[in-house]
């Protein structure tokens, strides 16, 4: 799996690199076209991470930075889903790292100067490995929306950043997960750099009552897909569809 051919990325499904409404792209988006490396010349493989490197609490943002007996402030939620490739095959033993603002929309980062309060029991970092069926889950609190410097009155929708490793470095992906029903989604210049509304919808986690833990956690389902072999060779129906 770490050296099988991958189909080319469909860049039309990804955000435009140069999207002036997101101001930071203006001086940072490359102007020259990408140069395609033929599949036969592509470097294969990628880093592997052992389950032994990750503790169970690493995936529990509610308590992984809290004083013993305390927990983070905010709506307690479970984020869970499958990690698949484009042939709809589960990707087991894949590293997923997440980061997010706290319930008031503030990051625990020395560079975040937003006046909203920090939560002493929340850092906003988590990580886990997918299991043998490609499943993952995190316990966390729902992050707050926040204003950001983009030249106007811009607010990020509530979101969680995901960094995902497949089994090949060429599958490497960083993305963001949003929440069903957030009115900021439609007015976010970062999300609007994605042209196809179905692609935007793919980044929106769905409320998942069946996986809520009564009197404890609300649940959201967020499935993710990394590059895979040419889809024409495989059935590619998402599980549960």
């Amino acid at each position, binding site marked *: 799996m770490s050296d099988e051919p991958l189909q080319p990325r469909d860049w039309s499904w990804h955000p435009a690199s140069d999207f002036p409404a997101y101001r930071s792209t203006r001086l940072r988006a490359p102007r020259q076209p990408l*140069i395609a*490396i033929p599949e036969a010349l592509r470097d294969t493989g990628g880093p592997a991470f052992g389950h032994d490197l990750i503790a169970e609490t690493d995936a529990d943002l509610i308590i992984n930075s809290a004083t013993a007996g305390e927990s983070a402030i905010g709506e307690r939620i479970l984020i869970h889903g499958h990690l698949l490739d484009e042939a709809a095959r589960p990707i087991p033993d894949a590293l997923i790292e997440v980061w997010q603002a706290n319930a008031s929309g503030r990051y625990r*980062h020395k560079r975040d100067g937003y006046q909203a309060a920090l939560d002493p029991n929340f*850092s906003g970092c988590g990580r886990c490995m997918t299991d043998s069926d490609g499943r993952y889950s995190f316990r966390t609190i729902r992050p707050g929306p926040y204003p950001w410097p983009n030249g106007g009155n811009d607010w990020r929708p509530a979101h969680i950043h995901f960094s995902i490793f497949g089994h090949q470095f060429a599958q490497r992906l960083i993305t963001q997960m949003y929440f069903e029903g957030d009115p900021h989604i439609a007015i976010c210049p970062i999300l609007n750099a994605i042209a196809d509304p179905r692609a935007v919808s793919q980044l929106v986690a769905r409320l998942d009552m069946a996986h809520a833990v009564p009197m404890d956690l609300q649940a959201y389902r967020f499935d993710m897909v990394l590059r895979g072999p040419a889809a024409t060779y495989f059935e590619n129906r998402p599980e549960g569809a």
Partner: protein
Amino acid sequence: MAYDPARTTAPAATNLPEPIKETPSQTAGPFIHVGIMCATAGITPPFGTDLTTNRDLPAGEKITIEGRILDGEGAVATEAVIESWQADRAGSFARGIWRRAASDLETGIFRIETVKPGTAPDTGLAPHIALWIVARGLNNGLLTQLYFAEDDLTSDPILALVPEARRPTLIASGRDGTYCFDVHLQGPHETVFFDT
């Protein structure tokens, strides 16, 4: 809508389209360190292991890659993260080497300590290191490749795809084992970025 008890236990549909597609990329933003290098963000790591440093380097010629990420006006990014992937000294990707580094929050300089890669004899490829760059303002991660000035690059089939005038953007010169590799996101010296 009338109260319906079934709705309180209904499973969610998937967020994936049909046919399924790769999850769209989104920018790493300026606070990526929180998730992947939390000490850099000023966080006392809640994790017992550091995935970035918890990897021994295999045998080989020790080298350091040092560089900066510059925008179209020459301003230095101070919140970028760079990951590298390369073959070992024998050219094997099965024993490939992965590294991750952050631009310094003040100077913007990133530093990757690794060993010089080799190349498998049958490929015709010159030794190289892939660098994947994410930052605020980059909606998609950028992939480039570093080559070494002292190597014979004349027959490398990937460099052959690059217009000659742009090849120098991929070639690093070393001094005492340190190779400088500045990445220009735009401008007359815009670095070559690849699609693999």
